[in-house]
């Protein structure tokens, strides 16, 4: 809402309050003033001149030689405007003046003729061309005759004004009009406001003889009022009105249209004018449109309506989409003489839906959507009538023809006045609270502890005691309210076990050299379906209106996003990449719109294992680099004993270098190399990834720590080298050794894997270091031998292992 500082002074004395101070105060009491515009900023030396004579330039067809009276002297000015004429009063930029864009006016010679200044168009005085009335759009501005010759022209062009731009939120719709702003500023400054009741000199003829009104959708149209006016002469509106409309960001059109816009800006009540001669009947019927009913609106567009849209009709066909836009068939034109003026109240939600569906948001519809002063509708009709009598020679027929209730009762709120102090933590006296509410022009009645507040209809946003708490708080200023610490129950808080472990995981990942990434949950449909730890073959969850195909579906895996991160770095000559992310993946559930959400940990590594240094080039990462990361993680979290790895084939992964990660036999993740084809397509080097359903892994927190005393007896270490077929997995040997070593075998460590000339071509040798230990005594060789031999023979039986000689 653009608020003219000058216009506001019609209603309230702003003496001693600069526009900046006013803006600060308005902002600090709840409506942000986004900025202040000074439309005359930088202009100087512009005076009112009178064109005494206007002759053709002898050398140039399109130029005029004007003798212009500037009050103190008459000078010659060369003017190229087509609309310049003798007798006009015009804005003149004198020699030495500054006009828009800081252009300085100098004495000049134009085709041999001296020009002592410039007669200005509104554009040259800094007006936005979009708001310049069309009569001045292609030439100079022309004043009305009341303006004194020689005077500073700026005040007569409202260029001494300051325009405050108020950011109106849902709760401040009462300030979408000048009177509402006046009430607000009155409360803030604690100054009275003066409003004039419109006076309409009606004719004797009854409007009801010309028109009748009925409403077929009473729920949606609480009030519909119509005035009839005859004998109108359509012409430009007066200068002051045009300039105020321009200040408010509305282009002046003609007196009839401008008056309805002006009254909307002043009262907040949208009005509509029909050319009564084109109306087609003497009856207004407001009803829902029929399904597929059509109307051509003012902008020439054919609109298809639905049975949810409110339509103003002449009883047969539509003449306006209620509250949104008038129909072309009844539009006021330059020939219009008789006008039907509508002042109505429509349901905000209905208007909102229609405006949204037709994509026709206007100043009127947005006021209907956000709410009106229900008690101002007839006053607005009167104000328009008053102005049209004055500025359009209107004869206004007697009475408003109406349907519905013209006014509503004020809303009453009862509450203990102390509640305001209780909620704010303030210590206002009763009189202070009452005083602030009265500044807002609310009526207050206190009996004992209870306060009854009568809230005017213009403050439709104030309905419950908490709203009054806010009114008192904001007008008084929250700065004056103390800062305290809560006195209530003191409570202890800590991270949940899962939150705690998640932080540990982050620390471990960072410690192992992986940086943390945050990527988007929404991705392309294709990438949303790939790399899931467990893909059930259901379509990924998709949003209805994606902003782009790139962010259309919910990821089931973090890996595709990390591949993007890797690509990003590779494209920027950063080939050594180690990233991880912890975040939600969204797993579609059959028959449900909502996916299951699981927090996963994923990682990607590629490039050198460590930074290159003076000792030579470090190795590049391989499968065991990434496996080492997850193993270290599982060790640190105390779950390693429950984890196994098994070879697996996954879409997009290297078929020989990928393993599922199992927790107690259930797949909770995978590790491996990206498929060479994927690497090629993405322009990646050899790249390894992992993803773990960390939430299911750690949902129950960590296992409790069990303390064992330090060993008092020595342990015995035996190394063993076993020759097996190459197809035998290390994990299988490890398992058989462990199974057969209990309870004395305490640890197993694979320390060598050999394939080569010393064993058969299809065989390999694996060497383990086995540690035997008994907490109660020192083991004898014989005792160890018994277990050790059992292990060897089990390996031989189950896996065909032979002791290497």
């Amino acid at each position, binding site marked *: 809402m653009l608020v003219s500082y000058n216009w506001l002074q019609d209603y309230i004395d702003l003496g001693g309050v600069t526009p900046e101070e006013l803006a600060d105060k308005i902002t600090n009491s709840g409506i942000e003033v986004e900025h202040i515009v000074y439309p005359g900023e930088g202009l100087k030396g512009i005076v009112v001149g009178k064109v005494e004579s206007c002759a053709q330039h002898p050398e140039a067809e399109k130029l005029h030689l004007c003798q212009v009276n500037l009050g103190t002297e008459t000078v010659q000015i060369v003017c190229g405007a087509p609309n310049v004429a003798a007798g006009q009063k015009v804005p003149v930029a004198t020699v030495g003046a500054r006009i828009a864009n800081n252009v300085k006016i100098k004495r000049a010679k134009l085709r041999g003729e001296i020009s002592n200044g410039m007669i200005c168009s509104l554009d040259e005085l800094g007006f936005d061309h979009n708001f310049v009335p069309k009569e001045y759009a292609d030439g100079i501005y022309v004043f009305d005759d009341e303006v004194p010759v020689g005077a500073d022209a700026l005040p007569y062009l409202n260029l001494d004004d300051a325009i405050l731009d108020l950011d109106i939120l849902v*709760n401040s719709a009462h300030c979408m009009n000048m009177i509402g702003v006046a009430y607000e500023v009155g409360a803030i400054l604690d100054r009275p406001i003066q409003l004039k009741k419109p006076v309409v000199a009606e004719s004797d003829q009854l409007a009801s003889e010309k028109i009748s009104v009925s409403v077929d959708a009473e729920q949606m149209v609480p009030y519909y009022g119509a005035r009839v006016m005859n004998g109108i002469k359509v012409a430009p509106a007066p200068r002051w009105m045009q300039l105020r409309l321009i200040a408010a960001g509305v282009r002046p059109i003609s007196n009839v249209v401008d008056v309805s816009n002006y009254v909307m800006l002043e009262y907040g009540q949208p009005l509509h004018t029909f050319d009564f001669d084109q109306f087609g009947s003497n009856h207004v019927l407001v009803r829902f449109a029929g399904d597929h009913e059509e109307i051509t609106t003012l902008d020439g567009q054919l609109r298809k309506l639905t049975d949810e849209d409110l339509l103003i009709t002449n009883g047969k066909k539509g003449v306006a989409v209620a509250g949104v836009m008038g129909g072309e068939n009844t539009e006021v034109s330059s020939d219009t003489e008789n006008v039907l003026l509508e002042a109505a109240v429509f349901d905000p939600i209905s208007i909102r839906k229609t405006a949204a569906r037709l994509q026709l948001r206007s100043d009127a519809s947005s006021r209907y*959507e956000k709410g009106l002063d229900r008690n101002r509708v007839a006053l607005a009709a009167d104000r328009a009538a008053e102005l049209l009598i004055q500025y359009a020679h209107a004869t206004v027929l007697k009475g408003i023809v109406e349907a519905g209730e013209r006014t509503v009762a004020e809303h009453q709120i009862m509450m203990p006045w102390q509640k305001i102090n*209780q*909620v704010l933590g303030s210590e206002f006296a009763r009189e202070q609270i009452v005083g602030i509410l009265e500044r807002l022009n609310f009526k207050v009645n206190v009996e004992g502890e209870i306060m009854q507040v009568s809230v005017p209809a213009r403050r439709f946003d104030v309905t419950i005691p908490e709203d009054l708490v*806010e009114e008192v708080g904001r007008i008084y200023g929250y700065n004056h309210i103390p800062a305290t610490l*809560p006195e209530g129950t003191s409570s202890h*808080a800590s991270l949940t076990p899962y939150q705690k472990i998640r932080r540990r995981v982050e620390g471990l990942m960072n410690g192992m*050299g992986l*940086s943390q990434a945050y990527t*988007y949950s929404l991705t392309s449909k294709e990438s949303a379906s790939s790399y899931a730890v467990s893909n059930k073959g259901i379509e990924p969850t998709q949003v209805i209106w994606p902003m782009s195909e790139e962010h259309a579906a919910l990821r089931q895996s973090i890996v595709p996003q990390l591949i993007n991160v890797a690509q990003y770095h590779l494209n920027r000559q950063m080939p050594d990449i180690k990233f991880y992310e912890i975040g939600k993946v969204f797993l579609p559930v059959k028959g449900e719109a909502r996916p299951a959400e699981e927090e996963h940990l994923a990682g990607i590594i590629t490039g050198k294992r460590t930074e290159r240094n003076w000792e030579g080039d470090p190795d590049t990462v391989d499968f065991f680099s990434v496996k080492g990361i997850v193993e270290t993680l599982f060790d640190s979290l105390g779950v390693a004993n429950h984890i196994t790895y098994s070879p697996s084939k996954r879409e997009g992964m290297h078929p020989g270098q990928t393993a599922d990660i199992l927790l107690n036999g259930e797949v909770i993740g995978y590790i491996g190399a990206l498929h060479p084809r994927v690497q090629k397509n993405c322009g990646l080097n050899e790249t390894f990834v992992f993803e773990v359903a960390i939430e299911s892994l750690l949902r129950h927190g960590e296992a409790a720590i069990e303390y064992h005393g330090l060993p008092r007896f020595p342990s015995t270490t035996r190394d063993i080298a076993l020759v097996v077929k190459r197809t035998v997995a290390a994990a299988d040997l490890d398992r058989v050794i462990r199974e057969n070593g209990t309870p004395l075998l305490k640890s197993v460590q694979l320390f060598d894997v050999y394939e080569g000339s010393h064993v058969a071509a299809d065989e390999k040798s694996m060497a383990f270091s086995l540690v035997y230990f008994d907490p109660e005594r020192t083991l004898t060789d014989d005792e160890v031998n018994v277990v050790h031999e059992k292990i060897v023979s089990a390996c031989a039986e189950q896996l065909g292992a032979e002791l290497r000689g």
Partner: protein
Amino acid sequence: MLKEKLLELREQALSNIGSADGLKALQEAQIRFLGKKGPITEVMKSMGKLSAEERPIVGQLANEVRKLIAAKIEEKKADLEAKLLELKLEHEKIDVTLPGRKIATGSPHLLASIIQEVEDLFIGLGFSIEEGPEVEQDYYNFEALNLPKDHPARDMQDSFYITDEILMRTHTSPVQAHTLEKHKGVGPVKVICPGKVYRRDNDDATHSHQFMQIEGLYVDHNVRLSDLKGILTVFAKHMFGADREIRLRPSFFPFTEPSVEMDISCFRCGGHGCNVCKGTGWIEILGAGMVHPNVLRMSGFDPSEYTGFAFGMGPERIAMLKYGIEDIRHFYTDDIRFLKQFDRA
């Protein structure tokens, strides 16, 4: 006679030891003079031939010579060893200015660091951390927060809907509603809720279709706006410096009444006005307010018994302000050159 021999042996030995140029020569000298078959042992053996008066004198002399030679050998040995060590150390000298073998650590994400800092502060103030689903029901995202279906502050176009009733949450506030419901009308409820949220925006320098939010909620008997002010003051000083001041400006959110916006005094200029605070001396940090009675009621709390405050902030905004980061997309591009700068944050 023996006495002269001993004195001569002493001279010979000392000269031999003195001229030994290595541990090997020294060892030979030791064997030669002190060995079981050495000359001094010989002298000792032949002492039986001496008279009773002479024997103790020669015996004593022999012992003295033996001790002296042994001591000299030890002395020489220590001397030689020290020289050897010196040589060895000289040989082992390295360029200590060469870089060491570092263990390259990764960087935590700046947003994670900021969220953790806020979490830790509020845990200290007795708030626990609640998380909730990112795909929400319309009811929890809007209706339970006093945003009924036709509320003007609601715009379908601003949200990623999955069906008419399911959407990507547009704020972390639904976690408030879930948490209140869980408490079944009994306070206190004291939580902060960090998490990802989604808005139907085009990504540019200041907009992101996905971003983080941290929401706080405190509901109890007699919770006051002044308490909100107190808690937010603690927050502002903790995050932005001990000499920060705050101010509350009235604002509007459907789920709070009254609603406020919190500004902090500019940490760059201290309030005199600069480009960070756009000349105002104040920087807008977060939105807050007293929980709307409808919100309490819908989640099972009696607004005549309980009041509460809520606040919500954007970690991206905090980070951008604090470090002068110019583009919100940096947080989601994960450029390591960006992340590394904040690994101490």
